């Protein structure tokens, strides 16, 4: 099987292609392929929102307006009202923006030839950091700076234990942005690596048949059909993952905001 011999090299190339490479400047000051597509997604999001605001009427018409409204209502009811509660209105702009920002980035990455902005840890870390600062800010605003940090330790725990619990809680708090960033990044990165691997395999097995048509090559290319079928299934799964990851990030952000503003633990 000649295809398997080539596979290792091809997949190494694929992974190398997935690691961040500057398209302008360098890795410190410049743009990588991920940040480029992230900016594209930001522009797409801006255009989508401008069009939506212009087209939104009291009686909604068409797939576009109804589709966007469905997602907005989803964030409004299931995330903002459902998780944050009575204070949902204040946090809705942040939650809706982060949901749509991640969603558009994830979907942009699913278009062949494009990359998801959320497929690089630098980009997801930026979103996680903003979320972290956001909920700490509202926690401090609600309880006062000292009050917020004190509220991390549960009330009603005896003296030596509450310090111990407080330290654990602070660690847990600091881990939140890291888990947010890594979860989103790994899901998008791994999904695209798997899709890339199956598309490479589909191409490698079909290659001899495309170069020279013979019965043997046709038989050898049969697995390509299976790889292609698996690729399509994974692609469908990735469409769901793109949505689910945007939802998970937003829900966790809402949960952290709700916890930060909650009256005591």
């Amino acid at each position, binding site marked *: 099987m000649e295809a398997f011999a080539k596979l290792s090299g091809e997949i190494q190339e694929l*992974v190398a292609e997935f690691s961040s490479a500057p398209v302008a400047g360098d*890795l410190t000051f410049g743009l990588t392929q991920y940040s480029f597509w*992230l900016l594209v997604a930001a522009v797409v999001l801006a255009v989508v929102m401008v069009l939506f605001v212009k087209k939104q009427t009291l009686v909604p018409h068409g797939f576009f307006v109804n589709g966007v409204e469905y997602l907005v209502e989803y964030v409004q009811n299931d995330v903002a009202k459902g998780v944050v509660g009575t204070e949902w209105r204040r946090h*809705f702009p942040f939650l809706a923006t982060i949901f749509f920002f991640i969603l558009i980035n994830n979907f942009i990455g699913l278009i062949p030839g494009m990359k998801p902005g959320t497929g690089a840890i630098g980009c997801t870390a*930026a979103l996680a950091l903003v979320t972290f600062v956001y909920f700490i800010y509202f926690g401090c605003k609600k309880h006062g700076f000292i009050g917020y940090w004190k509220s991390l330790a549960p009330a009603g725990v005896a003296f030596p234990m509450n310090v111990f619990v407080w330290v654990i809680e602070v660690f847990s708090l600091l881990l939140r942005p890291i888990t947010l960033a890594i979860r989103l990044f790994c899901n998008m990165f791994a999904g695209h690596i798997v899709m890339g691997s199956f598309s490479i395999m589909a191409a490698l097995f079909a290659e001899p048949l495309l170069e020279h048509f013979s019965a043997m090559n046709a038989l050898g290319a049969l697995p390509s059909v299976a790889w292609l079928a698996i690729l399509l299934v994974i692609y469908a799964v990735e469409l769901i993952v793109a949505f689910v990851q945007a939802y998970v990030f937003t829900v966790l952000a809402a949960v952290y905001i709700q916890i930060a503003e909650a009256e005591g633990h």
Partner: protein
Amino acid sequence: MKHNVYVMGLAGVAAALALPRPAFAEEAAGGADILIPKMAEFIPALIAFLIILIVLAKMAWPQILATMEEREKRIADSLDEAEKTRQKAIADRKASDDIVTDARRQAAEIVLAARQDAEAERSRILAAAHAEAEDILAKAHTSAEEERRSIYADAAASIADLSVSVASKIVAKTLDEDGEQRRLIERYIEEAGSLNAD
């Protein structure tokens, strides 16, 4: 054969997926490098997201929420209005039904009253007709009696004349028309008439 190809293929994928780690580690000086944020990605993402967040929070989300809430309110109001209209329609229907029932009842009463009036009128007319007929009959009887009496009187006079004339001829003696014979005959006829009248 085909099954073996799949198994080999999956094994190849597994091997290939396992392979990049050392390869990546070599070129990126450690596998964890992939988890280290690059400033070239972090800074643009941070700026882009913050700009989008501020712009949408100021210009899009409040308007979008306001439109959706306005719609929700309108729909709720319309449903309330529709319910009120429905209740009013039911009440109106009931009122109109009551009016129709009342009108029917009144119509029936009017018809009944008219029938009674007509019956009374008919009875009155009939009674009047009877009375008139009886009156006419009575008058006719009276008139006939008078006629009869008059005819009888005339006949009596004629018979008296005839009798006097016949008697005159028989006794060959002219009798005075105002004489004793004539009075006798008239008295006789009168008696005979009164007997006949009874």
